[in-house]
């Protein structure tokens, strides 16, 4: 499959504007009369958001287009620790992202773009913005802002709160950002990768975009593959690729693969190498999982799934924005239950409690955080049922103390038994 977003990469240095133009061609400008045509083409392309929610990009654009004083927010926060795709785009091919941001702004009639990115990527992005200064731009100003850290900080309303100089906490919707977003203005919030795809659709059209992928999820997608594989990293794959193939794309498994975490920390565990599954919504849904933001982590035979799940649950509880009772209390209750299970101190009724509490917190927060955590935990209890029982009866195994596949930045030590 020919690279699209990652064309010209890997490279020793970020692609300059000249290199970018050589690879992708000139940046199209979207005049006021072309805006409708573009949005309709994006709809025809079926571009779905690549930030995790998978919302149709054209629908969001149509909602914001034509409103008063709209603004575009480019979301490069990437709060998911096991994801690096947005960082790769921002660091290595910033002009593709900037193209997409400008095109989106022109399409919805916005004069301003706020690009939110990790602090350490900002110097390179400033350089890229300066490189474009002499171009005849269409009055779209791009301003850079440092992203907040934290798992939920990348949620679109949390990003808006952060831009408004408030703590990066999600707020309840409705109203959605497209209606009332940044300082009350209609706001188009898009993930970095979504806009990179938009930059190419504007050049090559929807038919080209649909040349790869599945009928239900078109185009290519970036995946971050890590864990017990030889070549962890960010890869561009066609939507609908066979899940086991992701492991061979990433250099093959180091160990025999016990399970994959698909969709990141809000996703789900699937057994083994995901045989029979393809990387799209319909297929993954049959395994209670989803593509999410394209994160796949492989757990090897020498890792402990119980220790990993318990530690992750503890971290997810810690990462709660502390706004909603069921999230704050429910995730803590589940984390403690999992820790009891890991250390062989399970209480009678804990298996029923796990099922009850994962159901009970689902859909009960202002954002998807408790729902995602519950999904991950419920899938672990299904896929790792045997290991859960083993730990409940005999306590920690040899692998427990060493197992550190899932990254949990800033996990408070009191959580580690």
């Amino acid at each position: 499959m020919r690279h699209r977003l990652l064309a010209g990469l890997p490279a020793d240095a970020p692609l300059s504007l000249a290199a970018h133009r050589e690879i992708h061609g000139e940046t199209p400008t979207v005049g006021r009369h072309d805006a409708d045509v573009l949005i309709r083409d994006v709809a025809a392309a079926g571009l779905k958001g690549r930030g995790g929610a998978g919302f149709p990009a054209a629908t969001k654009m149509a909602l914001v287009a034509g409103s008063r004083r709209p603004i575009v927010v480019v979301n490069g926060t990437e709060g998911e620790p096991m994801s690096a795709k947005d960082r790769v785009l921002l660091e290595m091919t910033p002009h593709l992202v900037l193209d997409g941001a400008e095109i989106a702004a022109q399409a919805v009639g916005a004069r301003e773009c706020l690009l939110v990115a990790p602090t350490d990527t900002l110097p390179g992005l400033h350089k890229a913005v300066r490189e474009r200064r002499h171009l005849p731009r269409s009055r779209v100003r791009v301003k850079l802002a440092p992203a907040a850290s934290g798992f939920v900080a990348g949620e679109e309303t949390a990003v808006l709160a952060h831009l408004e100089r408030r703590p990066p906490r999600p707020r309840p919707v409705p109203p959605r950002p497209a209606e009332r977003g940044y300082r009350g203005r209609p706001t188009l919030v898009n993930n970095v990768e979504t806009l990179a795809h938009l930059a190419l659709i504007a050049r090559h059209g929807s038919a080209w975009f649909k040349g790869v992928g599945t009928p239900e999820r078109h185009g290519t997608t970036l995946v971050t593959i890590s864990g017990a594989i030889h070549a962890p990293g960010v890869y561009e794959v066609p939507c609908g690729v066979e899940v086991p193939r992701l492991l061979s794309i990433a250099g093959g498994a180091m160990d025999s693969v016990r399970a994959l975490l698909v969709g990141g920390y809000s996703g789900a565990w699937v057994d083994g190498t995901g045989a029979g599954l393809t990387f799209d919504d319909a297929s993954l849904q049959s395994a209670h999982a989803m593509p999410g933001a394209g994160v796949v982590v492989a757990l090897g035979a020498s890792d402990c799934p119980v220790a990993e799940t318990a530690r992750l649950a503890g971290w997810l509880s810690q990462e709660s924005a502390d706004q909603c009772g069921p999230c704050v209390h429910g995730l803590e209750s589940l984390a403690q239950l999992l820790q009891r299970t890991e250390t062989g101190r399970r209480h009678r009724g804990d298996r029923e409690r796990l099922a009850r509490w994962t159901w009970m917190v689902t859909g009960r927060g202002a954002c998807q955080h408790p729902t995602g955590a519950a999904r991950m935990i419920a899938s672990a209890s299904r896929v790792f049922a045997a290991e859960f029982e083993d730990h409940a009866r005999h306590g920690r195994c040899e692998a427990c103390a060493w197992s550190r596949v899932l990254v949990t930045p800033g996990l408070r030590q009191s959580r580690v038994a």
Partner: protein
Amino acid sequence: MSATHRGSAPALARSVGRLVLDPTRCTGHGMCAELFPEKIALDDWGYPMIDPNGVPYHLEKHAERAVKGCPVMALRFERARTDA
């Protein structure tokens, strides 16, 4: 039971509206469940779970009392549109 879940179409057609919770305001006082136990139950941590199937005509007064009784104004009542 989701705080924002929409009930099935036939159930909503019989209801006059639905209760919607702002989970970021709710502090688990439990007054709402006390005033309207037919449609509101408390979860294992004392936070309300609202029946997503809407409020029927004969219970509307209880829904209104629950809304007014919330000390932090976390609950609101969304009236169903009367046009077909």
